[in-house]
């Protein structure tokens, strides 16, 4: 029996030692690593950048995680990531908080994104104005009948509040760029936790309407063409229309660093803004910033 206990003891000691040293070993390896965190919209894009970048230089390691723009910026502020991805501008409040913690957010515009408004392919409604969109998402318009569709109650799909897409849509569509606007998403809007969840629900529900980055459009959803107002031209969410600036709901995608980038972070960002990096932007259905 005592022998058994010593044996157990030894086993536990080994487990203990492994537990302590494995993370240490990783920390040593991770010297050349960059943590990139934030916007879910940008995760696929950043992952593509990271993979290409790591192929070129196997010693450098870029880890990409999502979670939402707010998540990325708050971890930049708390110092747990090197680069924050954000699909909205940093808020004044966040800058103040960052300064308190000795962090200086530095903004880099890395790509552009068109926000597509999608409905079920069975829905006859194919074009909407910004005014109508605002009406729909604030529940002033509640039936597709009012927009020339079938007699069905509109089901609103929105991203969660941690999403930069949510914030952008609220500020630029619901409030029509008015910084003092008070419009809010209707409380009855369903808050889904990912763009993919919205895509799935739109595909399955004939009365649903949702919004997300252009990259998520597939044949199971129908993108709606959008006009600034009733007299303007209705524009489809397509890459060329975002580049030309004709499509009314497009937004810049940002990367934030602490102070002007240096060392390996700068190396990575130079790659992102290079011709090769921007080709990856195009390949992942976003819009490059440099032509």
């Amino acid at each position, binding site marked *: 029996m*005592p022998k058994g*206990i010593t044996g157990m003891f030894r086993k536990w000691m080994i487990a203990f030692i492994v537990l302590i040293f494995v993370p240490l070993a990783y920390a040593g390896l991770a010297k050349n690593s960059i943590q990139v965190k934030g916007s879910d919209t940008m995760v696929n894009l950043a992952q593509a950048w990271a993979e290409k970048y790591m192929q070129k230089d196997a010693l450098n390691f870029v880890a990409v995680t999502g*979670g*939402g*723009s*707010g*998540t990325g*910026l*708050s971890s930049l*502020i*708390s110092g747990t990531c090197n680069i924050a991805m954000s699909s909205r501008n940093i808020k004044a*409040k*966040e800058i103040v*908080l960052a300064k308190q913690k000795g962090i200086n957010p530095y903004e880099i515009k890395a790509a552009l994104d068109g926000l597509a408004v999608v409905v079920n392919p069975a829905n006859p409604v194919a074009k909407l104005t910004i005014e109508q969109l605002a009406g729909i998402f604030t529940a002033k318009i509640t039936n597709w009948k009012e927009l020339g569709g079938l007699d*069905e*109650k*509109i*089901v609103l799909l929105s991203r*969660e*509040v*941690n*999403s930069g897409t949510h*914030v952008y849509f609220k500020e630029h569509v619901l409030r029509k760029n008015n910084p003092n606007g008070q419009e*809010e998403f209707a*409380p*009855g*809007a*369903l*808050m*889904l*936790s990912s763009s993919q*969840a919205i895509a*799935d*629900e739109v595909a*399955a*529900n004939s*009365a*649903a309407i949702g919004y997300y980055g252009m990259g998520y459009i597939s044949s199971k959803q129908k993108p709606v063409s959008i006009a600034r107002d009733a007299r303007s031209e209705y524009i489809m969410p397509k890459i060329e229309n975002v580049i030309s600036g004709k499509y009314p709901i497009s937004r810049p995608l940002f990367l934030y660093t602490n102070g002007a980038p240096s060392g390996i972070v700068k190396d990575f960002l130079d790659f992102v803004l290079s011709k090769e990096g921007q080709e990856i932007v195009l390949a992942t259905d976003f819009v490059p910033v440099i032509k």
Partner: protein
Amino acid sequence: MRKIKELVIEKLILICGLASIIFVALIFLFLLKEGLAVFNIVSPFKFIFGKSWYPISEPAQLGILPLILGSLLVTLGAAIISIPIGVGCAIYIAEIAPLKLKEALKAGIELLAAIPSVVLGFIGMVTLVPLIKNIFHLPTGLTALSGSIMLAFMAMPTIVSIAEDALYSVPKTYKEGALALGATHWQSIWRVMLPAASSGILAAVMLGIGRVIGETMAVMMITGNAAVLPNSILVPVRTLTATIAAEMGEAVVGSEHYFALFAVGIVLFVISFIINVTADLFLHKRQ
């Protein structure tokens, strides 16, 4: 040498024993420290009975009544579904089922408990949600009812295994006495076994409910997360847990939104604390 070893192990185990209490205390203190700060911005009354939840607007509206009602509605629905089935299942396993079937049923229940909640949520999203939409002709199937049904599956293993235990620990002589007096099998179960095991069964129910109200992933996936005051079980709801899970990532550390989410955590903690203490009281009464 042996004595020293005994002593060391004894003390180690003592530390392990105390650790859980210390952790609970630390967690609660941390929750209080972070959460109470929100009451500098909004009064407790307005926080709990406020009807709109727009945490990132300027100024933020921090009313969690829709969230509390959402949680309670989903939990109530899950309780109504899982209690009769769970207790019935426990009675069958403890009193009626032949030995072989009993083992199979018990294994099945344990398997049900082992399914991760995210998997249940996913299954619910693809199977249950469209079904509910079509049956009730709703605009969307992401409703409180979908959440209740999925959560009932999660509460059932807890209810069945603890209730079965309670029935099993009723002295055999009770049942024998009842049968000897000429009661039928059902009469002896209904009039003798169930009342004798009632406190254990109530504890089982409370623990099952406790599991449901704290569940996050599945409800976040299938209840639609719309922060409206629910007027029926067929509308989307947003629960306390889903709110914390969905928004904690966004909240800037030290902002009012961050404090508000911790305060939501306090509310949740208090609710599940009450449920667990009630369950504990029932369990001790039995002994």
